[in-house]
């Protein structure tokens, strides 16, 4: 029993990472209307920046914050250089461009930080034992970070003027434009937000495992799966689906083995989509 409880905690943690990445994907999809394949490599870049800043300052918190800011900066720069020019093009054109952006980010990360895997230098802490279940204190800290990130994103989306306008653009871009809402302003906010959420996901993933140039790209498929499962364009759905998939994957490992755990989440995805084609929370296409 305790082994399962520990697997479940592990699943929740990886679920939070997948959920955050899926949130970044679903935000961009809802407003810019394409699946952003550069999300994974923005995660990687955020993790590397956090790693080197925390190495230099000795503080993982400072490193993480700078990493999140770097993610926001990458998002905004990529928007201005690439996606602003592709506005109004098909979502396939944007998707292909984002794959290119992903390669470029990964190449730059490789040049700056080299290719060996690295780890965050964290002090070793004895795990707590709660009802005989081992709980890593660092997991609790990461969960708090994830919850704070989510709270910030949802506050921005649902309780601020810029969030209101982002949701207006997601709802009807043409109407937003003739209602005097500047698409550029909304897009800057969107890309900064999605970039920093990706970076936080990358930092969390890096702390849990190791930091490599491929880490983000490898997370892309599960993150897409969670975004679709949650109902594309639906922020709450993305988070819930990420946690669901993460937990199912880890819990299934003893039965199907490590190799097939990723396949399990796609089986779940297929089953859910057969029953509910618009995803767990989706009501129709587009975002709200």
């Amino acid at each position, binding site marked *: 029993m305790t082994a399962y409880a520990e697997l479940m905690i592990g699943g929740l943690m990886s679920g939070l990472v997948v959920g955050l990445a899926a949130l970044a994907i679903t935000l961009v999809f809802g407003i810019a209307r394409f699946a952003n394949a550069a999300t994974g490599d923005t995660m990687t870049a955020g993790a590397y920046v956090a790693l080197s800043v925390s190495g230099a300052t000795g503080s993982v918190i400072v490193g993480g914050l700078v990493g999140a800011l770097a993610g926001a900066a990458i998002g905004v720069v990529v928007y201005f250089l690439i996606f602003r020019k592709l506005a109004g093009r098909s979502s396939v054109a944007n998707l292909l461009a984002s794959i290119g952006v992903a390669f470029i980010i990964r190449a730059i990360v490789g040049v700056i930080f080299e290719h060996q895997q690295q780890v965050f230098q964290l002090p070793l802490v004895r795990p707590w034992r709660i009802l005989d279940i081992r709980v890593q204190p660092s997991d609790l800290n990461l969960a708090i970070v994830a919850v704070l990130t989510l709270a910030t994103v949802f506050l921005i989306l649902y309780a601020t*003027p*810029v969030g209101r306008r982002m949701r207006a653009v997601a709802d009807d871009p043409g109407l937003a434009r003739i209602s005097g809402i500047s698409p550029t302003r909304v897009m800057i906010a969107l890309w900064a937000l999605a970039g920093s959420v990706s970076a936080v996901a990358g930092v969390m993933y890096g702390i849990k495992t190791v930091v490599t140039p491929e880490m983000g790209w490898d997370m892309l498929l599960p993150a897409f799966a969670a975004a679709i499962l949650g109902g594309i364009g639906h922020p709450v759905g993305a988070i819930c689906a990420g946690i669901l998939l993460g937990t199912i994957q880890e819990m299934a490992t003893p039965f199907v083995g490590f190799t097939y755990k990723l396949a399990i989440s796609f089986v779940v995805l297929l089953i859910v989509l057969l029953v509910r084609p618009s995803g767990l929370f989706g009501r129709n296409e587009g975002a709200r």
Partner: protein
Amino acid sequence: MILTIEGLTKVYGALRVVDDVSFTVPSGDIVGVIGPNGAGKSTLFSLVTGFLDAAKGQVNLDRKPIGSLSPVERARSGMVRTFQVPREFSHLTVWQNLMAATPKQSGESLTNLFFRPGRIREEEDMNSQKVDAMLDFLRLSHVAHTPAGRLSGGQKKLVELGRALMTGARLILLDEPFAGVNPVLIEEIAERIRELNAQGIGFLIIEHDLGALTRLVSTLHVMDRGRLIASGVPAEVLANKQVREAYLGGTS
């Protein structure tokens, strides 16, 4: 805000959908355009608001040509349209629909959000008061916090009107504001238009339905097969023989 249309023409193949149409909407006036289905009224609207490009002719706002301006720029200069099938931000509440359209918000930027929260709060309070007053005026206060997608067709038309007004529009182009609206709400909408007009806001209204429109407008233009076939005060225009043949099929 004066709107002048000069020789506006739109051609699809051999069909002249809008054919050499000219008229003026004087500042603070209510002008109507009627005509049977397919007369080119909606196309005319799209040409004026920049959603379609004209083959020939000119649109002037306050005597300046605006033919090269995009729909967004035309909306920003104070001329805002509504749609025959009302469009709203369906997942946003009525209140949020109007708040989103309020211009010049410093809360549009994420950095301001973090570094100037005080200023944003002040603006929000101010804009929120304006929106509350507008909802009160439009008799929509009771649905302020309902998602706009759930309203009735007539209420959505009022939301469109409110959103246009919040952008600071001085000339509003209404595309069939009374179509599909119940008679009680038609009178409500007409009354709001009169009150806004008394405050100096101009209207150009396309309608298929004559009843409420003829009581509202000072000038009525009739379109048939792309051309303007009659213009003048409503009573005179409706007495015109050519109009009766085109529009009313010859019967009274």
